[in-house]
């Protein structure tokens, strides 16, 4: 059969969702942000909640998220996305409100807002993109940089004796009583993207239950900040990041899941 005969509207199985704008993404080639943007928009399209969803854009590489997500968005100050989301959700309890934050935003300057929003059990969804460095400003060490990881401010690798230990925000919020669903996923292979999409879908559906906060961490890459090609970065992520940040659900339906 000729290829041109297959390319017909009737045979279409996958297409970029229209909720992602036509504007080219400002991210570097191979960056996980693009995949996460797309799967969030696909989930919103599948749940048919585009007109009822309000997203909160952070500060960081994804500061322009509102340019690419064709839904209502609000820009928050650095780290304050959970506080902004709290205000919006309390004004419109029936809207779906989510924040999209990087590790510098959520785990460094916004630690207080994140922990208190999770502890209060605000009925929102937090999507946390963890690439282990401050990508936008040039790849400096972040609170989530794993031990031994090279960044522009730790050229010999992170020494925990000198620079302290990395923080596992997802493990912390899973132990707070206000969270309903906590999961850690990645987007470096097709299988992981499918699992991450399922977790994000659960996190959005949970807002209907009004029983607490849903938190999804995505372990992602940063080819430019890590000074690698996208393929090398994904391989490095699998070999180094995932053993330190094990994937899977940490809390389901308000109950902690014991590690396998």
């Amino acid at each position, binding site marked *: *059969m000729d*290829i041109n005969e*297959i*390319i*017909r509207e009737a*045979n*279409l*199985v*996958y*297409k*970029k*969702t229209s909720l*992602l704008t036509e504007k*080219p*993404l400002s*991210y*570097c*080639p*191979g*960056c*996980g*942000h*693009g*995949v996460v943007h*797309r799967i969030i928009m696909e989930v919103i399209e599948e749940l048919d909640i585009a007109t009822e969803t309000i997203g909160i854009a952070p500060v960081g590489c994804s500061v322009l998220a509102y340019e690419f997500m064709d839904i209502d968005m609000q820009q928050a100050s650095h780290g304050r996305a959970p506080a902004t989301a709290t205000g919006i959700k309390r004004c419109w309890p029936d809207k779906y409100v989510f924040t999209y934050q990087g590790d510098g935003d959520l785990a460094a300057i916004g630690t207080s807002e994140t922990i208190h929003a999770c502890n209060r059990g605000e009925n929102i969804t937090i999507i946390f993109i963890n690439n282990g460095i401050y990508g936008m400003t040039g790849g400096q060490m972040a609170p989530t940089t794993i031990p031994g990881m090279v960044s522009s401010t730790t050229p010999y690798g992170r020494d925990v004796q000198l620079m302290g230990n990395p923080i596992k925000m997802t493990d912390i919020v899973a132990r707070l009583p206000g969270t309903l669903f906590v999961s850690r996923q990645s*987007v470096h*292979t*097709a299988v992981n*993207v*499918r699992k991450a999409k399922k977790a994000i879908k659960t996190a959005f559906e949970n807002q209907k239950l009004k029983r607490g906060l849903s938190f999804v961490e995505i372990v992602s890459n940063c*080819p430019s900040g890590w000074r690698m*090609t*996208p*393929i090398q970065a*994904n391989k490095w992520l699998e070999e180094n990041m995932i053993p330190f940040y094990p994937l899977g659900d940490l809390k389901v339906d308000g109950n902690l899941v014991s590690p396998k």
Partner: protein
Amino acid sequence: MAKVKGAIVIDIERCKGCELCVVACPVNVISMEKKVNTKGYHFAYPENHEACTGCMNCAIVCPDGCITVYRTKVE
């Protein structure tokens, strides 16, 4: 037995040449073009298009959402 055949269309102007689709494809359909697009990136193209099964792996891992997938059954 019915066989599944697929086809992909790549938006070459949106492609940034990260090559993640090349490694994600289980049947090695995609290669990188020597030419560049207007942004200066070597873009992906379906070199071995006959082998495509329409599994969507390339489209799912594409960070820029460049790939559209079609699939049909052939007798």
